[in-house]
């Protein structure tokens, strides 16, 4: 592979996807029937709390009525102060996350400074929009994006639709097949200026109820020791909540459910 060197008029700038297309690395879209039995990733939620944002996602991927993966990571760190959660066709979704992470890093290295949080949210919107032809064939991908805004010292959240529509939310977001149940739990439980532990309990409860009602959402898998991915983003950056802490949270949820 020779070094990518461009004339000023051909230069893709800090845009990694444009660079991929210049060097011929973008896959061609496939025409034809919609594909349904490929793995799908499901429920992700995010809430704002007093120091920033807490994001969470279950671990299950399904293909049709079968469970295809038990330990998918649908909520991942995008860069130091932001994270992304994703629902939809697992293959394109994981590729989108990978490209998004790369794009943020690529931009930072090329330009010598990070994109603003708003810029990152907008960048993700462009990527969702670019996936629209695949979405029409049943390979839709819908992300959520959350991050800590250092200038305002607060967390911000965005959700998207399949056409790339980008909507900033002030309180919470829920996406994926279990979003109706998860969203309702959060809607009832959300309070302004929650503490981190309250926010973590709330998102865990939301995922629990989603898993209870939606077969495509996985609950905590105590037998295998697989718990949802939960992480807080604050001025300390992306901090994942550890499994033993999550185990305690779910134990208390189970205790509550048992006594109701």
């Amino acid at each position, binding site marked *: *592979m*020779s070094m990518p060197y461009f004339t000023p008029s051909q230069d893709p700038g800090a845009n990694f996807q444009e*660079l991929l297309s210049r060097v011929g*690395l973008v896959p061609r879209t496939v025409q034809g029937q919609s594909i349904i039995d490929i793995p799908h990733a499901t429920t992700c939620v995010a809430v704002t709390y007093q120091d920033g944002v807490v994001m969470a996602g279950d671990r299950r991927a399904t293909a049709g009525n079968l469970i295809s993966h038990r330990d998918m990571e649908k909520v991942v760190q995008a860069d130091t102060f932001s994270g992304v959660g994703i629902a939809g066709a697992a293959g394109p979704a994981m590729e989108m996350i990978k490209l998004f992470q790369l794009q943020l890093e690529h931009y930072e290295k090329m330009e010598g400074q990070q994109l603003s949080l708003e810029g990152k949210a907008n960048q993700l919107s462009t990527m969702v929009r670019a996936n629209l032809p695949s979405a029409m064939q049943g390979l839709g991908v819908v992300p959520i994006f959350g991050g800590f805004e250092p200038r305002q010292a607060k967390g911000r959240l965005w959700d998207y639709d399949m056409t790339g529509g980008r909507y900033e939310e002030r309180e919470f977001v829920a996406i994926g097949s279990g979003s109706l149940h998860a969203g309702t739990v959060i809607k009832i439980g959300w309070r302004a200026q929650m503490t981190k532990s309250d926010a973590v309990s709330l998102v865990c409860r939301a995922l629990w109820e989603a898993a209870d009602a939606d077969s495509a959402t996985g609950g905590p898998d105590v037998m295998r020791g697989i718990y949802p991915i939960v992480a807080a983003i604050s001025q300390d950056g992306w901090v994942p909540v550890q499994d033993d802490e999550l185990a305690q949270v779910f134990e208390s949820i189970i205790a509550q459910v048992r006594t109701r």
Partner: protein
Amino acid sequence: MTMPFYVPPEQQMKDRAEFARKGISRGRSLVACQYLDGILFVAENPSNTLRKISEIYDRIAFAGVGKYNEFDQLRQAGVRAADLKGYQYARDDVDARSLANQYAQMMGHIFTHDQKPLEVEILVAEIGYLASEDRLFHILYDGTVMDESKFSVLGGDADPISERMVTSFTEGANLSVALKACAQSLSGPDKTLTADDLEVAVIERAGNRRCFRRIEAIETTSLMG
């Protein structure tokens, strides 16, 4: 129609090399060296925004001297090559040796084929998981690659700075000691460089993933104090 004068190729290459060296010697110099926790870069650079040292990939950094726009274009090409390779294969597959070869190819080609050679010298440095796996690839304007060890000096005043570096460099020195050695070597007997005149960065062996870190003036001052 006028016939162009015949210029023998030896003369042509000599002229080009001289042209490139002149351009490079107009700029300020740069030193990179191994220290206890990785590789340290120190450049004489009064600008706080136009960088000579920058990140290429997780464990790889780039440094350039000479004409800013030219080495910055090389830097961008390096970031692109590295990010593309990491995307296509795996992050571990991105290595300094391959990048240095690609740079050498490109700079060699430009030296012989383009209107004018690049007036730059660059350094591609990589930290290994052990100090013995550290790499310093010094690449000249004509595509010559030098695989250097311990330290590397780039720029017009390279010879006197190297001589001073030989005496002041100690293996396994901590950051503060290494930084002082580099700053003294860059300064020489006639002038003293302070933290404000220097651009300092490190790639740290113990880093999480992206090991490159800039050391800002405040930290530089305290390390040199």
